């Protein structure tokens, strides 16, 4: 058992070394593209007829997840109504969107249009 595990560990280490050396061999001097980084998830809470935080700043490649904690349904819709558009979110429903391009994304709740907020991607 112990011997087996040691062997497995040794093999794993060897594999990692191989992968690392392969990566190093292929790497160029530029930093890795953000898209290659593990996707980060930022949360926006919908409650009491508002988005919180109202302004969220994220890096490109970030996934934003909205969750409706209100007792009334809401939606998450970009102001242009095309970039992103959730279905109607009942209490505890969520919607996610991954922002790949830098920019300011204004959005609102299409049921209660006084509810507005933005995501800044930079």
């Amino acid at each position, binding site marked *: 058992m112990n011997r087996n595990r040691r062997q497995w560990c040794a093999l794993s280490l060897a594999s990692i070394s191989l992968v690392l050396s392969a990566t190093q061999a292929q790497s160029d001097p530029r930093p890795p593209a953000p898209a290659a980084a593990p996707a980060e998830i930022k949360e926006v809470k919908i409650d009491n007829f508002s988005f919180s935080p109202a302004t969220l700043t994220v890096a490109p490649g970030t996934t934003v997840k909205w969750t409706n904690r209100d007792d009334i*349904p809401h939606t998450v819709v970009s102001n242009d109504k095309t970039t992103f558009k959730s279905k109607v979110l009942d209490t505890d429903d969520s919607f996610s969107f991954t922002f790949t391009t830098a920019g300011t994304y204004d959005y609102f709740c299409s049921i209660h*249009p006084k509810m507005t907020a933005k995501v800044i991607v930079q």
Partner: protein
Amino acid sequence: MTRKTKDELTVDHNHDGIDRRGFLKCMAWAGTGTLCVMQGGILKSYAFGHTDTLSADAPAGELSFAQISDSHMGFNKPANTDVVSTLKAAIDKINALPQRPEFLLHTGDISHLAKPEEFDSVDQILKSAVAKDVFFVPGEHDVTGDDGKQYLDRYGKGSQGAGWYSFDKKGVHFIGLINVMNLKAGGLGTLGPEQLAWLEKDVQPLGASTPIVLFAHIPLWSVYPEWGWGTEDSAQALALVKRFGSVTVLNGHIHQTMQKVEGSVTFHTAASTAFPQPEPGKADSPGPMKVPAEQLRQLLGITDVNFVRGQHALAIVDSKLG
């Protein structure tokens, strides 16, 4: 007369000391529906609650119909986890009216999430109403997800555009307007130029003595724009009916009753059959008012306040139905 915004209606136009703020204080919790009686071309409304015992106090008039609103079928949270039974109670109340209403008006938010089964439930319950004709306009909850396609399939037969239409009953011209489509970020309810152009044509052949009833979900006057309780281009619609001697505007959306008179125009909002919402600005948000279960029906049924036209812009009479 002062104008704060382009569509904000007047303040104390009769110089009788009752301004908009004063008016807002007059509003009250109302019952689950409203009986509307057209008398001498003027519409009067009588709110009724669950607990009233109806009598023949309301005058007969030339035409009566009942308005219900905001049934929010599918809502199941405090303060009302049983919106089916409160809608049924409203229909029972309508069926018990001493004078049979000619028809029902439902001023929107029929459903909570625009699910087919929610519309089905409401349709099933409304079948028990003695008045067989029901006229609808959608609320924003009825058109989410599919831009109102399902609503139009179910209720939009013979309507124009996004679902607007008109019909005549006993010399009264009724106009159903849609102000819950294409809402813009930060904005209020919207009628849109296409609908306004239709409205202009629709009323063009009518004589100025024809009583007009406009009904739409979101109020066609600025009740509380901070919560979206108003319609951006309502002033344009009201300008198109300005020449008529009697104009009544019936709305829902705000889950409480309010009335006001503005020249020849009388505005009414109906209570919800489902759950109460706070008075404008009296809470952080317009979310459902949570009240203890044992108080819900009592709260929904405490109104005996009516507003009728008189010497002043607002004459409050206690013309309760019971």
